[in-house]
């Protein structure tokens, strides 16, 4: 006997009232996309629940993929058996064994089909006894069990549900709009993207690339990071902005102390333009208060002056160690620590102003006109499309079109 389906319970989504249906549909399509490489699986929506029918696919692989999907509160393996004592016994034992280290358990039976001869209260000891007879050093604990096994006798059959696994939480990606993530290649921005996606937000990324100061490997790093993030959502378009010219001009014409602040302001301006072109309504950054010079209250105030787009900063109050924990958990940490320079590290002044102000930044910027430089950078920007399975550049996409035409 094997598990034939996975039961999915919603989190916050259940509270969405009239919009619930749309949320459910999005969740279903997100799960389906995640399980594309398991073509036999089917998804069934029922009142307040969803079931993934395995149809022979590997239960543990499917479970692992479903756990990454945002909008799911918890998941459990479930098996449907006949309303027949021996089969039910075998099913509860399977469910118990699924929880590897469990030392205590509880069986909660429910009998919707009253024609089934054994009442719920009598079923618990019959099924529990079977587990006890087939295991060692295991006991029943009705108050604080390691695992609770649910048995539901319905008209169409009996469902036995094993322990709960935690889901991704949050909201299904794609239900709360889109944000443009400023993705540098460091540890913070991917985590920030992940947390934003967890709130149901789809993301595009903007990346500033400064050849020859930053290498192709730095860009590859960003692609790899985006690919990790894509595992939690849908495809991510990385808008790669050639930034060398602007950086050189800042370096040449702006006072050193303000160069970092002004560089960030330029990035903000460009990001806002990208967002506006793509109909994206907010920007997301990996800023964490007090971490580096650009993330002081004064810096944030001065940098933020150039955009009135909302800036989502999920990490703003997190400690570095908390951020690293999440980065490890979501698989971005090892990529982020690859030692390549990115545009935020290459032109760092010796003594960046930690308390810049808007007036001075505006004054310095007024000495040089960056309008054309920004236009040029946008003009020369290109898109790399990243999904969990593949990476496609604009050029490749265009080649595909050329074949068609």
């Amino acid at each position, binding site marked *: 006997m094997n598990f034939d389906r996975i039961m999915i319970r919603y989190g916050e989504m259940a509270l969405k009232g009239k919009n619930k249906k749309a949320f459910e549909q999005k969740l279903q399509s997100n799960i389906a996309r995640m399980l594309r490489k398991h073509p036999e699986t089917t998804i069934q929506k029922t009142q307040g629940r969803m079931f993934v029918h395995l149809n022979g696919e590997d239960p543990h692989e499917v479970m692992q993929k479903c756990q990454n999907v945002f909008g799911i509160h918890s998941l459990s393996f479930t098996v449907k058996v006949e309303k027949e004592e021996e089969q039910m016994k075998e099913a509860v034992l399977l469910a118990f064994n699924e929880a590897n280290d469990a030392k205590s358990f509880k069986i909660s039976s429910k009998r919707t089909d009253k024609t089934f001869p054994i009442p719920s209260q009598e079923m618990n000891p019959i099924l529990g006894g079977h587990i006890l007879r087939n295991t060692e050093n295991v006991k029943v604990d009705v108050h604080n069990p390691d695992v609770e096994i649910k048995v539901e006798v319905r008209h169409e059959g009996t469902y036995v549900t094993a322990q709960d696994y935690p889901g991704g939480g949050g909201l299904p990606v794609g239900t709360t709009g889109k944000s443009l993530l400023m993705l540098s290649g460091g540890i913070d921005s991917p985590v920030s993207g992940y947390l934003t996606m967890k709130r149901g937000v789809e993301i595009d990324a903007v990346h500033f690339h400064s050849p020859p100061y930053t290498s192709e490997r730095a860009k590859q790093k960003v692609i790899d990071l985006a690919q990790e993030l894509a595992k939690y959502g849908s*495809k991510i*378009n990385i808008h790669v902005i050639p930034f060398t010219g602007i950086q050189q001009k800042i370096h040449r014409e702006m006072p050193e102390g303000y160069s970092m602040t002004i560089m960030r302001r330029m990035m903000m301006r460009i990001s806002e333009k990208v967002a506006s072109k793509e*109909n994206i309504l907010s920007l997301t950054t990996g800023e964490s208060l007090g971490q580096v010079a650009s993330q002081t209250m004064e810096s944030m105030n001065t940098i933020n002056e150039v955009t009135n787009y909302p800036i989502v900063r999920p990490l703003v109050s997190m400690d570095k160690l908390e951020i690293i924990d999440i980065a490890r958990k979501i698989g971005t940490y090892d990529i982020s620590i690859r030692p390549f320079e990115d545009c935020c590290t290459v032109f760092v002044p010796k003594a960046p102003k930690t308390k810049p102000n808007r007036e001075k930044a505006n004054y310095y910027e007024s000495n040089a006109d960056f309008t054309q430089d920004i236009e040029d950078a946008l003009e020369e920007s290109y898109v790399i499309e990243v999904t969990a399975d593949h990476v496609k550049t604009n050029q490749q*996409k*265009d080649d595909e*079109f050329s074949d*068609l*035409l």
Partner: protein
Amino acid sequence: MIYLDNSATTRPLPEVLDSFQKAADQYYANPSSVHSFGSEAERLLERSRKQASSLLQVDPQEVVFTSGGTEGNNMAVKGIAFQHQTRGKHLITSRIEHPSVIQAFGALESLGFEVTYINVNKDGKVNLEELKGALREDTTLVSIMSVNNELGTLQPIKEIGQILKDYPKIFFHVDHVQGIGKIDLPIKDWGIDLCTISGHKIHGLKGTGALVVQKYVSLFPLLHGGSQESEVRAGTENLPGTVAFVKALRLLHEDQIGKSDHLRTLRHLLWTSLKKRSYCQINSPKDGAPHIVNFSIPGYKPEVVIHSLGEKGIFISTKSACSSKQPDVSTVLKACNLDHDLTTSALRVSMSYQNNEKEIEKFLEILDTTVEKLQQTMG
């Protein structure tokens, strides 16, 4: 099988079908959808438009994708007439236009517009002096085809464009459905404001085509209901069809460069061979389009000839397919003032780059035996 009815429709190229299938399968999103899948489809559509525009040597925003020649012609004729009716209700066309043009004008007449039909000579060429004389202050449109679909006659489009340069308020529409890929038509240089082309005449798919509408031209839309195609043609874009059409256009363009002599050679062979045959008389002008030869076998109903040839696997046609279901006279040939026995016995052979000399020879051979047989039974 020898297929010589390419002016009715052509066989879609395998590459074209392949593009259609792939586009329909991989880019099925609605180009108007906001999601990224939709914007990808939109990008493909715009890439198609760009490619079409560069092949036609116009600007991308001047290409409106349509469902084919009939729609393009209706859109141009009615679109100009309605949009500019406050300025004038006088329109000009020729007597030998395609039914999708002639009947559109007929419909406008019933709505109170006045139409002048320019006569043609024996070869089917419009009379330029008559055209000049017909131009008026309240004329809004002149619509003349580039290549006649029955005779292959080339109209003096360049000269008409030249004449109309002195009338900046009159729009010039050219039905180029038979001409595309066979003859050059520099739209911008010749003062053409609107130009119809169709996909299925160039080895693309039926239900595809384009109307070129110069930037400064405003049209009353035939179809309302959305902002697609610069708001002159509402409705979800036929992306796979369009992609296939533009592919066909590119392949045609390459063919045209490489093989334009080929068609002329075929036509010359056909022409000189038919000329030698006493039972037939050629109706097409000698300097016509390189793919159409119209001839009559006086005394024999064209349908009988067509069916007899069809039995041997050879497919030609009578008049244009669009009017061939109507019996008797060809109105085009009648407008050319040809004798009654010629207008009632006309046949059309229309070739494509895919035909070869062997096929033409085979056709002639079978035509001879067919006519001989018919003479025995009917003569």
